[in-house]
């Protein structure tokens, strides 16, 4: 689904990620781990086309990122649900409008959208918060709104950048459970986290592949977690 071919990336000067070659297989559950500042967010941004590699190539859905126009990338995003590290919303719209935004942006609002939204709100457990505005939400609620927004387009890939960073253990488990459910529905999941206990918990439920970033490289971690 996503292929890296000797891709490297540097913001300014020195390389942050170097010579990455890997293949994100369809339907698999991937953890991306590594110390803070190692480049997890940068790697994920390349996975959804926000950043282009400085050298090498990245292919998303068999399309070369280097050949894609801005609008091509925008269209591709509709098939990738992204939960940003500091999940951003339109603060002047209530959470339902925020969740529905991907539909409206791609002009796919239809009579079924209403039911779809209701089901999604129930799934993330926010039915009683429909009229809330984003600034009023707690950390866990923000993550769940972001998750609902990420899946409303029924994307093939879900990318979540440290969704459990600002929430307690109970909420972390709950979010992980939702992501595992999505994976069992056949979605490819990419989840960045430096929380090893979360990874261990996930491994007891799904076959998860762990990509560890260290020294500018990404390695598939063994059983030594």
């Amino acid at each position, binding site marked *: 689904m996503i292929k890296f071919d000797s891709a490297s990336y540097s913001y300014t000067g020195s390389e942050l990620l170097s010579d990455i070659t890997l293949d994100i297989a369809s339907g698999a559950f991937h953890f991306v781990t590594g110390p803070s500042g190692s480049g997890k967010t940068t790697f994920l941004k390349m996975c959804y086309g926000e950043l282009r590699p400085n050298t090498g190539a990245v292919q998303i859905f068999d399309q070369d990122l280097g050949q894609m126009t801005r*609008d091509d990338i925008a269209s591709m995003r509709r098939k990738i649900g992204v939960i940003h590290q500091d999940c951003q919303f*339109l603060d*002047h719209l209530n959470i339902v409008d925020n969740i529905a935004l991907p539909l409206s942006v*791609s002009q796919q609002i239809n009579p079924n959208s209403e039911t779809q939204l209701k089901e999604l709100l129930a799934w993330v457990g926010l039915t009683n918060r429909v009229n809330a505005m984003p600034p009023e939400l707690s950390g866990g609620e923000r993550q769940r709104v972001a998750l609902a927004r990420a899946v409303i387009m029924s994307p093939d890939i879900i990318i979540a950048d440290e969704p459990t960073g600002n929430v307690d253990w109970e909420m972390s488990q709950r979010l992980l459970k939702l992501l595992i459910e999505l994976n069992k529905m056949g979605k490819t999941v990419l989840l960045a986290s430096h929380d090893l206990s979360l990874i261990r918990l996930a491994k007891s439920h799904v076959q998860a592949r762990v990509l560890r970033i260290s020294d500018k490289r990404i390695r598939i971690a063994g059983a030594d977690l």
Partner: protein
Amino acid sequence: MMNYIFGLFDALMTTRLWSRDAQRDRVVPPTGYTATLTLFSSAVMAFLSVFALTLSISAARLSVYWGDALANSSTLQISARADQMETQVALALQILKTTSGIEAARVISYEEQQKLLEPWFGPAAPLQRLSLPTLIDITEAASGYNVENLRLRLAADVPGAILDDHARWRRPLVQAANTLWAIGLFCALLILSASGAMITLAARASMSANSQVIAVLRMIGAHDSYVAAAFVQRFTFRTFIGSLIGCALAALLLITFTDPTQQAAILTGLGLEGRDWLRLIVIPVLFTVLALLATYAAAHRVLKGLS
């Protein structure tokens, strides 16, 4: 540039810019500050351009008035004793016929003269007893004729002839009116381009103030045209309302301070009459089209710079 034109065309054709998408209307947060500023400045600019346009229209009217009234015509007036009159007139006509630059010369008949003088003397005036001069109406060719030359030739052969070339002393007035017309239009154009610059600045300011909104929209798969249209709609609408208000205020002021019942006002005063008022509609229309183009260009430039 071509890309930009095609993009705009595409956006118009796919009705992205005009479709009433309630959600898109709301993706840009309603910021009171830039909204009020855009509204205010487009109102002021429209107000000013009404006056520039009024000046221009008034000047054009003066120019037409002075120019039309006696375009390319002069009059030769011949005074002579009654028994000499016929030969003098014949001589004068002969001279006129051989002057290059004169298309036609025609003696104004007694009946015509009577009609011309009726307002002053009444219908029953015994004009014959006044021994009026004979008038010859001269029509110039487009090239005009040499006035001094004609004067000299007339002076030699027809001593009682007076050449009155009214077109000539009116020409500077027509020229002045034309200059005024051009200045008025030029000012209107300047105001319009300043408005374009202002709308561009406002749109760019609004886009940088809303960079997070743009980032979110992009993250969830919005095409550039969607994001651009959201801003274009906002600013075009604001500019339209602002220029409408400015136009209305200026029109109100014009109505209050120009008195259409005053005869002289038509010739000398700054003012609009009849169909001229309809021409004012051009101003909000121009402002709206301008806002559309300026915001579209600004939005696309900003978005292109993001990748």
